[in-house]
């Protein structure tokens, strides 16, 4: 594999442990009832987040691999290990993502739509729309003032507005997908990729290559094409600002910029874009716990 769908150089799937402000490190000091966890098993990566007292303690990302159930367990256990937590201290777990029902030890499974909404609202209560673009799905989620999902839409079967489209194009271009974002930013004249079909667009890209078009322009054109599809879905759903983008593709600055142009709206992307669903799941677990 050359890169992940985000178009940013992959930090090897790893752990970000956010130090709790109080410096509470000793397990015995913790209120055992207050820990909750969210596990988001996606098509490419599995994510976990642990939540306590209104704050995210840590998150982790690993590759999903063949078994969604195993990935869910592994990412959760590894995160607990890194946080020095015991499974028994976690009072409630919510699973999400396409593999949500494979996480058999979760207290509840919720769709990633609800979880991304909850995660975005937790991280920025002003957010009214969330665009979540992952490996095989893209979603537009509209939130009301209380952060509840009021409407949403998902892509159809076509891969054109998803991370998969970027993967296929990276292969055709023989460029590391992780470099896509930065490369496209230096383009002065994005190529026009007109096709909305992934297969047809790939042949368009190949013919652009053979015509000697510069890679940076082709990549910028690819980002425009992806952004067009997502923007159509967003406008159809009645997107309203402030907008946050989540999911792996949010880490591709080229797509974000193209989407901002199409929507004529600024888009907020947090460091936690990829783990937002897991964070949302942990937040929901705390709410119901």
């Amino acid at each position, binding site marked *: 594999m050359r890169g992940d769908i985000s178009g940013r150089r992959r930090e090897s799937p790893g752990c970000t442990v956010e130090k709790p402000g109080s410096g509470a490190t000793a397990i015995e000091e913790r209120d055992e009832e207050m820990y909750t966890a969210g596990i988001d098993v996606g098509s490419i990566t599995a994510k976990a987040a642990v939540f306590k007292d209104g704050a995210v303690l840590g998150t982790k990302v690993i590759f999903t691999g063949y078994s969604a159930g195993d990935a869910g367990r592994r990412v959760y256990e590894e995160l607990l290990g890194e946080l020095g937590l015991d499974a028994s201290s976690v009072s409630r777990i919510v699973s999400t993502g396409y593999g949500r029902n494979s996480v058999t030890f979760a207290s509840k499974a919720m769709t990633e739509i609800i979880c991304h909404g909850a995660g975005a609202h937790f991280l920025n209560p002003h957010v009214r729309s969330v665009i979540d673009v992952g490996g095989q799905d893209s979603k537009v989620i509209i939130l009301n003032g209380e952060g509840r999902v009021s409407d949403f839409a998902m892509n159809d079967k076509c891969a054109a507005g998803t991370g998969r489209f970027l993967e296929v194009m990276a292969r055709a271009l023989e460029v590391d997908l992780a470099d896509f974002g930065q490369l496209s930013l230096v383009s002065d004249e994005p190529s026009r990729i*007109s*096709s*909305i*079909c992934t*297969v*047809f667009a790939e*042949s*368009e890209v*190949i*013919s652009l290559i053979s015509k000697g078009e510069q890679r940076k322009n082709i990549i910028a054109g690819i980002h425009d094409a992806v952004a*067009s599809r997502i*923007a*159509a879905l967003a*406008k*159809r759903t009645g997107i309203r600002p402030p907008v946050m983008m989540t999911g792996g593709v949010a880490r591709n600055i080229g797509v974000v910029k193209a989407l901002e142009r199409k929507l004529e709206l600024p888009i907020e992307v947090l460091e936690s874009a990829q783990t937002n669903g897991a964070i949302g799941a942990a937040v929901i677990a705390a709410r119901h716990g």
Partner: protein
Amino acid sequence: MTESAAGRDKRKFASAKKMRDIMTSYYIEAKSAKETGKKVAWITSGGPVEPLIAMDIIPVYPENHGAMIGASKMGGNLCEKAGEMGYSDDLCSYARADIACSLVNGGPIGGLPAPDMLICCNNICGTVLKWYEIQARYYKVPLFIFDTPFCHTGYGDEVKRYVRRQIDEYIAFLEESSGKKFDHDRMMEVGKYSVEAQVLWQSVLDTAMTKPSPMTCFDAFFFLALIVTLRGMEVTVDFYRGLLEEMRERVKEGIGAVPRERYRLLWDNLPIWYRIKWLSDIFTAHEACLVADTYTSAWCGQLKYMDEGRFLDSMAEGYTRVYLNIGVDEMIKSVLEMVDKYGVDGFVMHSNRSCKPYSLGQYDIRRAVQEKRGIPSVIIESHMVDDRSFSESQAETRIDAFMEILRESKGKRGA
């Protein structure tokens, strides 16, 4: 394959500029209707336009507009806009481009003039019913539906009565919408021009029987605009008379539309509006001339039913028995006639995602042509206005392979 500048020049049509001028002044007149106090009616391409002209109502054709949008490669963006409005990419791209264009006044002429009324005739498809309904809602104007029942077995007395009664309702609708009285004498005159223009258009198309053909179907797609939009006007008759003269001149001088014409092909379905030049160049490079098509003849294919002496009665039949409103058997018959008439060696079928009725029977038609005339065929897929679903490289590969087969089969037959 390169041709001298002189060679290219002699292939240019003097009539092209004339037509552009007529179309420009027509659209200017239509777009200034509000100022001149004239009424504007939007009408489907197969709809009965003559009564509008007789009543001095300006007919405007969203389908012609769709073609212009496609030809100027603005269809993709407008269809994307329609997608944002909630219209599926699987719907007809004429309809999608038009619906989006109403909202943003986009396209090559900044949108069509708003209609005072809509006239929808379902002889070409069922999509127009939904499309015009959407536009009637948007513009809040009355919609007249001219219902032409599907004719799979001829044209019985009952159909005749039903359609004829609607012509009277149509005229009453126009009188009410325009506040003017219908003038039967003027109608006779318009009817005469309409039939005359159709006869001339057929004669223009007929010149392609000559080898080499003085025109290709791509030329026909272009010169079609007037017979669609302004049949029933004197200017249209004059124009086609001029065009016919030009064609006959070329025939006399032996000027072919394609230099070194070796293969004669038949086109089926609407054009791929955003790749006309591209396709024309590809076929020209193969020394193949698309001499005829099933589409442009739709505006004169009903001449056998038309009678200018009793225009309104014959019009009812003419509009009901168009190519798309008859059974596949009839379509096959019509295609075979064209194959024979124009001396066709191969069949190019456009499988058009925008037009289900036109594309549905193609496989059976293709087989019949293959069996009965032994000529090869190729299918190219597209959405006629939405260039986002077209693959140039795939189309090119198919055409190249088809031409290889054709070359071989024609070689064998010793042509």
